[in-house]
Structures are given as C-alpha cells and as structure tokens.
C-alpha cells in the first residue's frame, strides 16, 4: 500500500465517507488511488476555498470531521481562507495537501509554497511528512486531534514522493508509536473528571440577578440537551452569542436572544444589570462584549469551557472550570434540582425585557416595496420546517438571520462568526446538504457575498443538490454602507453594486430555476415555491438599499450605547463617489 492508498484506508477506518477536494500535480497520486477507492465520496468543488468551506459546513451541520484536499502551491493558498474560518470557529477539520517531492523542497520548485509555515497561525496543529513511514501515525493523530477538546483544523502537507512510497509494512497505525505518544498539550489530553463545582454553586446561590451567557462551545461539545436541562432546572435567564444561537431551542421562556453589537436590547440590558454571569462555551469576543470596561460591570464571572487559555483572557473569572460541558452541566443541574435558585423577581424583569425589548419587528400589514430584510427573514422562519438548516454569508443579511430567525438547534445555523468570511454561505450549504441529504438546506446570501464563491453553483449542478438559494439583494455592500452612514459621516465609498449581474440568468446557466420578488405580499408565495420545488432553486429578493441593522453598538463603544432607527441621522443624499466614476 502506498502513502496515498494508506490515506484512503484511514478514511475508511474512521468512517470518513465524504471529502471535498480539487486535484493538481503534487496530489495526483491520491487522486489516482481514488479511482479504485470504495466507501469515500470525493466532492469536486470549483475552487479550493469552496472545498475548505464546504468541509466546514459539513462539519458544522453534522458534528463530524470535515475533510478537504488540494494540491501544492495555489491549491494550498486557496484553502487558506476556509481553514482560517474553521480555526476561528473551532470546527473539526482535516486538511490534506500535496507538496513538491521531498528532494525539491527548498529549491523554489514549480508550485512550491511553504505550506507548513504559511498555515501556522490558522491551524490547531500541522505536519509536513518527511518520512513515509510516519504517515500512518500522523494520520491517526491528526484525525483525533482535530476532534478532541476544543476542535480545530489540522493540516497534513505530504510530498508527492511520500504519497507514492510503499509503506505496506507500516499499515498498522500502532507501528509508529513514538509519534502517537508525542507530547500531549493540556488541551488535548482526555477531559479531566468533573471539577469541584462548590464555588460555582455558592456564587449562583448568592446571586440575585444571575444570567446565563452561552456560546458555540455548547453545540461543539454536543451538550445541547445537558444545557437545556440546566437552563430549565435553574430557571436562569439566558443570552446567547452569534454562535450560541439555537442553544436554548426555539420555545425556551428564559432566553433573551443574542447579545452584542447587533444584539437585542433585552440581552444587552440584562448583561448590564446582572450580578453574576455564567459563561458557558464562549470566549467573550469583542463583537459580543463591546467595550470591555463597560461589559457586565456589576457581575462576577463563572466560566466553563474546554479551553484553559480562554479563562481570564479578556475578563477575570472568579471561578474558571475546564472540562467536558456535558459532565459539568449535568452535575450543576443535579445540584440545583436539589436546591433551586430563588430569583423570581429577576426572572420577571428579564421576561418583561424579552417581550418589550426584543428585536424591532418589521411585520407589516400593508404591502411594501421594496421588501425589508427583517420581515423576509421572519416569514422564512415561520414557513420553513423546524429542522431546516440555514447557512448565511456575511453582512446585514447575516445579522437579520441571527436576529429574526427562530433556531431550534445550534447546528441549524451555519454562520461565519470569528472570521466573518463573505462567500461562506454557498459552499457551507453545499457541505451541509451532503451531511444532511434529507433536510432542507437554505443559503441566505447578500448580493456582495454571493459573488465571492458563485463558482460553486457548478457544484450544485453536478451533484444535483436540492439547495434553496436566497439572495437578499440591496445592490450594495450593505453592512459597510451602514457603518459609513453612521460612523463616517455618510460618505459612501466603494459599496455600490447597482451593476450586479442578472442573478436569474446566472442561475439559469447552471440549470437552476429562479424566481424574483420585490413586494412584501410576494414573500410567502416565493418561499413556498422554492421549498416545494424538487431540486435547487434561487429566490432573488429585491430589498431596500438603505435599510440598517438595528440596534447597533458603535465598534469600541459599550453595549449600553445601542443606537436605534429613531436615532438615525440620515442626510438627504449620501456623498457618493462610485467606483465607476473613479475608474472613468
């Protein structure tokens, strides 16, 4: 068995049945081995960034390892954005690239790049395989490392000669034990037993206004059920981060929605008022906390996480507990069911906030044109089935999805959080559809973002994926326009997209039928039509150019300083210098 065949054998052994890749010179031995491989479906995307983001979407939707493959040089550099995206959101991913033959490394060979060096800052770990007989153990280690503790991408760069070397004698992964037993970081050793929770419980019982603050770590740990049991038993009001959306389920009476820059007033007010913040699987990102000095000013912090390095990083925690969230949450639930919290007044206060200070409703009885993004998303949320998976891109439309769609589970919401990668949605939705062939998968994109990985329409066509594509077309880079309006004196700069392509014609080129809507009375029919169609379909939605996401906290300001629509100070006409004028 040569190195390439060994990789495929490891895939089989680990039940890795779907991989996303793109061939080229140095990875050709692996593609040659694929011809005879069984049990592995290779999905050919149309750009390596698409491969990496599809692997990411696959992992997010399923909780399984996402795998992407590319050749050396440009193949590897094209993966970078997708791998960084997975790194920032702690997505389990295995990245395999071909490298120039060992003897040519360091000679500026054709399509040589220093992949190991280039990727250091965006991986959980990485390898350049220098000895063929180390490949089996490296594969084993990489596959488990990517999924252990706090997950993340692990990258193996493999010279072409290693892929071709016969390593039959080494086929058993235990044959190279020294690497498998290599130094283990504190993060990746098996989860410690449940830590002592007595300090945390004492703080919880002493608090008058305790609040739950949960993030993406809950879903990553597969701890949704334990989390919900804890939230119910404790009765703690809860806010969520962008990545924590869905943690509470859609019917929880205690949740206040997303906090932060585009969070609800209810969530930000509760954080401002609370005297204890129980942070679960979250890293206190600046988009969530706003100005740190003003964040939860009266609160003590209890922090539960899988990653030791997140404790005290941005805010000192009185109690920091590292461990498996399932174990810790179950123990806390047990303790609180024996001795409940007495926080009825605080619960009532939070419920009032939740009902009166949620996200501004855009529901409108009268027919309006153009359509408002929030109203569209609310209707989408009502019409789609509970288990629908919604991917989105980055911008205003992403925030409207986060604010107005009612998610029942964190794995139903695929959103690029840490990196904020425009172009994420389409390939992520493709990956999700492979992971969940029987579920409805919808990509909600912006007109700017859609163009960043539009080549993946060809992947939808090739695999006949029944994806539903929605473009909220405001003819501009809306999120940038909004910040230029609010924080740069309304001087619009390079955000105009009124010369967008005809998206319907574009879809037709890939055999994807489409529908255009522009009035609010067409929303329901539009959504029902694409959902009913057996196959991929595009819904192009003309939305208002100048709608903003409300509330908004100015970058760098405290979350108390939420701006609302009525504080909008729109000048009559923006100062605009379009790119076309500049070019003329």
């Amino acid at each position, binding site marked *: 068995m040569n190195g390439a065949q060994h990789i495929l054998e490891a895939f089989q052994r680990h039940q890795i049945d779907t991989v996303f890749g793109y061939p080229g010179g140095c990875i050709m031995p692996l593609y040659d081995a694929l011809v005879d491989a069984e049990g592995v479906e290779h999905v050919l995307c149309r750009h390596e960034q698409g491969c990496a983001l599809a692997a990411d979407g696959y992992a997010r939707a399923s909780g399984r390892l996402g795998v992407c493959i590319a050749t050396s040089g440009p193949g590897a550099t094209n993966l970078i954005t997708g791998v960084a995206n997975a790194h920032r959101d702690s997505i389990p991913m295995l990245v395999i690239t071909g490298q120039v033959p060992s003897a040519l490394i360091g000679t500026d060979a054709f399509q040589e790049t220093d992949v190991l060096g280039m990727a250091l*800052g965006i991986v959980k770990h990485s390898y350049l395989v220098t000895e063929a007989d180390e490949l089996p153990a490296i594969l084993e280690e990489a596959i488990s490392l990517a999924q252990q503790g706090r997950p993340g991408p692990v990258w193996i760069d493999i010279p072409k000669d290693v892929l071709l070397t016969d390593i039959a004698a080494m086929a058993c992964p235990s044959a190279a034990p020294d690497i498998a037993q290599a*130094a283990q970081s504190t993060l990746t050793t098996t989860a410690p037993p449940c830590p002592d929770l007595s300090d945390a419980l004492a703080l919880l019982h002493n608090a008058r206004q305790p609040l739950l603050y949960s993030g993406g770590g809950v879903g990553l740990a597969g701890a949704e059920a334990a989390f919900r049991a804890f939230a119910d038993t404790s009765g703690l009001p809860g806010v969520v981060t962008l990545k924590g959306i869905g943690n509470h389920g859609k019917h929880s009476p205690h949740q206040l929605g997303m906090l932060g820059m585009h969070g609800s007033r209810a969530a930000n007010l509760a954080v401002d008022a609370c005297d204890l913040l129980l942070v679960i699987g979250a890293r206190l990102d600046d988009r969530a906390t706003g100005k740190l000095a003003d964040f939860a000013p009266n609160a003590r912090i209890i922090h539960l996480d899988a990653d030791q390095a997140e404790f*005290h990083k941005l805010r000192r925690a009185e109690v920091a507990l590292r461990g498996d969230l399932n174990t810790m949450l179950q123990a806390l639930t047990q303790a609180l069911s024996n001795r409940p919290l007495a926080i009825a007044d605080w619960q009532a206060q939070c419920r009032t906030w939740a009902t009166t200070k949620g996200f501004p409703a855009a529901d409108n009885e009268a027919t309006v044109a153009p359509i408002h993004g929030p109203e569209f998303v609310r209707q989408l949320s009502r019409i789609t089935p509970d288990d629908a998976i919604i991917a989105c891109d980055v911008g205003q439309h992403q925030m409207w999805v986060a604010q107005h769609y009612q998610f029942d589970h964190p794995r139903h919401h695929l959103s690029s959080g840490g990196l904020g990668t425009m172009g994420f949605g389409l390939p992520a939705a493709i990956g999700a559809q492979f992971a969940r062939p029987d579920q409805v998968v919808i990509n909600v994109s912006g007109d700017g973002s859609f163009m960043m990985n539009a080549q993946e329409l060809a992947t939808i066509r090739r695999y006949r994926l029944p994806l539903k594509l929605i473009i909220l077309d405001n003819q501009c880079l809306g999120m940038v326009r909004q910040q230029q309006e609010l924080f740069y004196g309304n001087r619009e700069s390079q955000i105009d997209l009124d010369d967008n392509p005809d998206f319907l014609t574009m879809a037709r080129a890939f055999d994807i039928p489409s529908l255009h809507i522009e009035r609010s009375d067409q929303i329901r029919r539009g959504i029902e039509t694409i959902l009913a169609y057996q196959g991929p379909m595009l819904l192009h939605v003309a939305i208002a150019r100048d709608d903003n996401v409300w509330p908004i906290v100015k970058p760098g300001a405290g979350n108390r300083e939420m701006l609302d629509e009525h504080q909008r100070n729109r000048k009559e006409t923006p100062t605009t210098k379009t790119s076309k004028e500049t070019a003329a």
Partner: protein
Amino acid sequence: MSATTEHTLTCRMQAEPAALERLCQVVRVRGFRIRQMSADSADGQLTIGLTVSGERPIGMLQSQLEKLHTVAQVSTETTLALARA
C-alpha cells in the same frame, strides 16, 4: 496601560521541524517580544529558554503556549518590571 515587564520562560517541546516557528509566532501574536533565546535539543525534545517582554499578563502567554500540541511543559521563572521607556 500597564508597564512593560520582562519574564523568563522555559519551554519543553517536541523537536519537530516547525517547533521554533510555532513558539515564536505565538509569542509575537500574543503581544510579547523576544529579548533572549536559547535552545537545546536532546532525545527528540527541545528545551527552550526565553526572555520576553510585554505589557500583558504572562499567564496569558503561558496558557497559549501550553495549547501548542507539541509543547510538553512551560514554566515561568522570574518577572521583572522594566522602567517605562
């Protein structure tokens, strides 16, 4: 803004080709500068002595270094406040 402090660290890690790059990158990205550095390798292990300076708490750097998969141990030995430049 807190004052710049100098810290001495000892780090034991697996002697793989990218070991020093990984270490130095984390030090830089997490807000510290390397003042002095030594490295010894024996039995596939590297022992690295580092003097770094920075304004952030050294514990933050230590826990980020410990997160590197190939790092076995990090100890912080002394700290010394530098006069502000």
